[in-house]
């Protein structure tokens, strides 16, 4: 495959035209995967022998937590692309993704709190992972607020990109700092290549389907929101030109 061809989608018009065709498929697939995964998980998996029926929360908690982190990663990559190659679609995609990531973080935190109540006996503990997610949420808030606060689109894209880069470094630092500061209640990784650590097989497959559903939903939402941002940007440009005349 010719990698250079990929850059053609950085052209806003081309992006709109291509996503017009792709978006319905991704949306339908994500809905199918989410419905199948959640119904499978909710109705057709047994209770865990220690955690009882609360284990069903895993089908929301783990995918949301995964997406909360991966959204920031995606924003980091698109910010870098904007800084290096100055493709507007890239910067706007980062802007479009931030609220999605923030909502995923809230879902992970909320389901975690509800799950923690019966299992750990408390809604909230200053467990390293919980704390890190709270900090991640603050980073999302700051990032979105900075986008909103600046009027000039290119300035906003530059500033938020740098914030995303610096924020990533500090988010990682915070992660280690928090780990050092308090030992956690969380179990080890739910999904890993090491079979021993994995969740039991009955929960594994529906969980994978749910994760696929969340990933597809994320893609669909980001495409949709990026299209909106492209149009909004074009509208601002047209209005500005109109005022000049």
């Amino acid at each position, binding site marked *: 495959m010719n990698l250079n061809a990929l850059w053609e989608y950085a052209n806003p018009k081309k992006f709109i035209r291509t996503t017009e065709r792709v978006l319905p498929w991704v949306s339908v697939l994500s809905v199918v995967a989410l419905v199948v995964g959640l119904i499978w998980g909710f109705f057709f998996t047994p209770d865990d022998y220690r955690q009882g029926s609360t284990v069903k929360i895993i089908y929301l908690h783990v995918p949301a937590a995964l997406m909360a982190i991966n959204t920031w990663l995606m924003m980091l990559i698109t910010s870098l692309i904007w800084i290096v190659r100055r493709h507007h679609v890239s910067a706007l995609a980062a802007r479009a993704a931030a609220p999605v990531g923030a909502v995923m973080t809230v879902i992970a935190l*909320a*389901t975690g709190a509800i799950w923690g109540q019966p299992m750990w006996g408390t809604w909230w503990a200053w467990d390293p992972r919980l704390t890190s997610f709270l900090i991640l949420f603050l980073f999302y808030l700051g990032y979105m607020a900075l986008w909103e606060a600046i009027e000039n689109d290119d300035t906003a894209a530059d500033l938020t990109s740098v914030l995303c880069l610096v924020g990533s470094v500090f988010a990682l630092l915070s992660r280690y700092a928090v780990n050092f500061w308090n030992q956690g209640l969380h179990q080890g990784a739910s999904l890993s290549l090491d079979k021993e650590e994995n969740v039991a097989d009955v929960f594994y497959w529906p969980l994978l389907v749910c994760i696929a559903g969340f990933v597809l939903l994320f893609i669909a939402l980001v495409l949709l929101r990026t299209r909106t941002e492209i149009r909004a940007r074009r509208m601002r440009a047209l209005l500005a030109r109109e005022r000049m005349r």
Partner: protein
Amino acid sequence: MPELGKYAVEVLSSYAVSIALLAVLVGLSLWRSRRVRAQLEEVEERVRRDGQD
């Protein structure tokens, strides 16, 4: 309805909260998409008209 036992409230409320949040996010994204698309068409129409005379 599966037997949820004593944790029914926790499981159901976490599903309700998550699905509600996702629904709000999807709804807002769609609503804003429609509105911006309509506004852009209006502006483009106006610009085209002004450009002619």
